[in-house]
């Protein structure tokens, strides 16, 4: 009985409900949500350490043993993502406190954010396919509300396509689940994996796996990302940062789970397809990132490039490459949140999202400028920062497996990332200052503090990657050997 692992999901949800009752007391709402998320960070770290000593933990809801009941499973990979999610959320909440207005907070802003986090954590922890669907939907419902939050014209416009595309992809998900249930008669991931391994991955299962690939490509923005830049540029900064850091990662996590645990028997079809998609994503994301003049769009295209990069690791599928991917996911969650927050701060300071309307910001806001510089280097993978170790391991994996095309594409894309962000840096931070120091709106300390926290985190992760190395190695080990996962579910 490991009731502990339900709390990363249930704590945010319970708090979200509780906050509805104290709608009028905004100050209490703010601090309760931050404190609960901090507690959640601590708790998930405890679970992560527990997984190292006790092995994979599982919780059968209502005492129904697998494969009959629904269950939560905590292994190193999922717990690493849960920990990072909670940390990023604390920082985004701190930023939101000082940036979103009172009228937003009054309309259950914190409740929706906590529901979103509950959904994200549940998707990381769930051990069966249908629960994955439900967690996705909880997360998406909260995100629908958040993307339209405040009801500005642009948000309303962008949210309709966002919802429509997500409903369609949820439909494909449901159809794929129906087919899996019709063919194999179970939805428990471990049980499915066992049956597929015993009876072989028949062509019909491969077709179903491609349906899943389409679903998660839509959710994570792997080639089917056309909805992403427009939707992620519409909502307020703190929400956009949460979306950019977390939502695509959930799709990526699901893809890793499905294609390492269930459909790993036909890599020449499924994994090659993922490789092709990842390569195309890298190319088109790079083109998008350098083509735009709007900071929000450049930043959103950077999310897409990262998705392509992470999934190169899954396409290669060796132990080293997957370790690299895990490092890179964690790095990307932290740095993308920071990037979105800085971009949003720049826009709110200069009043326009267009690059040619900003200039010389570094003179009045030196810390912001240098933080942006750090993010740029981290995303490009310069050594003392967090992007480096992931890139090295992924590159090593690619060389071992001999996939030189993907290797070349993923490292050329880093140049495009660097170029697109350097363009922002040179245009917006360098050059003549448009306004004198007195006219520029002051940058409040409350806004700067969360940014610095994330900046320190990326340094820490870059300088001491071995601090999380054991967890990453264990996570990759579990992903590469599905039998560890299956044994943990069925041993008791």
């Amino acid at each position, binding site marked *: 009985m490991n009731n502990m692992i339900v709390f990363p999901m249930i704590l945010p949800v319970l708090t979200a409900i509780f906050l509805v009752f104290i709608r009028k007391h905004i100050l209490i709402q703010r601090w309760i949500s931050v404190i609960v998320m901090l507690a959640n960070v601590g708790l998930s770290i405890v679970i992560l350490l527990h997984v190292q000593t006790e092995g994979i933990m599982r919780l059968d809801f209502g005492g129904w043993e697998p494969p009959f009941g629904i269950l939560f499973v905590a292994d190193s990979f999922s717990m690493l993502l849960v920990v990072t999610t909670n940390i990023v959320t604390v920082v985004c909440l701190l930023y939101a406190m000082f940036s979103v207005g009172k009228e937003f907070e009054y309309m259950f802003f914190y409740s929706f954010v906590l529901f979103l986090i509950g959904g994200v954590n549940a998707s990381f922890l769930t051990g069966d396919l249908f629960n994955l669907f*439900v967690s996705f939907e909880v997360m998406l*419902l909260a995100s*629908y509300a958040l993307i339209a939050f405040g009801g500005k014209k*642009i948000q309303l*416009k962008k949210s*309709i396509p966002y*919802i429509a595309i997500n409903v369609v992809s949820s*439909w494909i998900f449901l*159809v794929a689940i129906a087919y899996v249930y019709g063919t194999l008669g179970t939805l428990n991931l471990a049980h499915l994996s066992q049956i597929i391994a015993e009876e072989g991955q028949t062509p019909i299962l491969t077709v179903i796996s491609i349906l899943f690939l389409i679903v998660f490509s839509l959710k994570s923005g792997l080639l089917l990302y056309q909805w992403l830049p427009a939707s992620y540029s519409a909502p307020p900064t703190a929400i956009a940062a949460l979306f950019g850091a977390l939502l695509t990662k959930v799709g990526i996590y699901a893809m890793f789970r499905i294609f390492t645990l269930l459909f790993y028997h036909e890599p020449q079809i499924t994994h090659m397809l993922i490789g092709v998609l990842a390569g195309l994503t890298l190319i088109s994301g790079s083109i998008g990132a350098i083509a735009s003049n709007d900071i929000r769009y450049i930043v959103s295209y950077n999310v897409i490039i990262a998705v392509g990069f992470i999934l190169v690791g899954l396409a290669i599928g060796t132990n080293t490459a997957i370790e690299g991917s895990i490092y890179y996911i964690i790095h990307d969650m932290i740095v993308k949140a920071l990037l979105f927050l800085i971009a949003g701060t720049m826009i709110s300071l200069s009043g326009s999202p267009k690059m040619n309307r900003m200039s010389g910001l570094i003179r009045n806001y030196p810390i912001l400028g240098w933080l942006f510089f750090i993010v740029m280097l981290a995303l490009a993978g310069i050594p003392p920062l967090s992007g480096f170790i992931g890139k090295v391991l992924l590159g090593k994996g690619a060389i071992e497996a001999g996939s030189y095309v993907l290797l070349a594409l993923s490292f050329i894309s880093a140049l495009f990332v660097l170029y697109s962000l350097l363009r922002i840096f040179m245009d917006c931070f360098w050059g003549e200052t448009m306004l004198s120091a007195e006219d520029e709106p002051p940058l409040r300390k409350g806004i700067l503090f969360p940014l610095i926290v994330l900046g320190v985190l990326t340094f820490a992760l870059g300088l001491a990657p071995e601090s999380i190395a054991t967890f990453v190695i264990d996570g990759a080990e579990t992903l590469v050997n599905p039998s560890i996962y299956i044994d943990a579910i069925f041993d008791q």
Partner: protein
Amino acid sequence: METLMIILSGVLVTVATYLILSRNAVRIILGTALLTHASHILLMTMGGFGGTNVPITGENGADYVDALPQALILTSIVISFGVTAFFLVLSYRTYKELGSDDMYILRGRRNE
């Protein structure tokens, strides 16, 4: 029975696709609602139509229907109900705010 249900599901998907591809926001919402219902029928068909009794243990012997697809469908209905309701409210707000529910007018980066 199975064939009939699959055909019905297919017809629903056809109608839903037609509706989603139209320009009117309300039609798109109706399309998404129909789409999820098509998948509910598919789920039910995939569970098979065996069994004649309610799945309560201890009664009526062993000849009970598979309860899992029904549980899945119920969950999915609740979710699709929530999404459709939210979508309707949102498109209504959009209509009030922007004065149109025509996707052709709402598209692009004008008046941002």
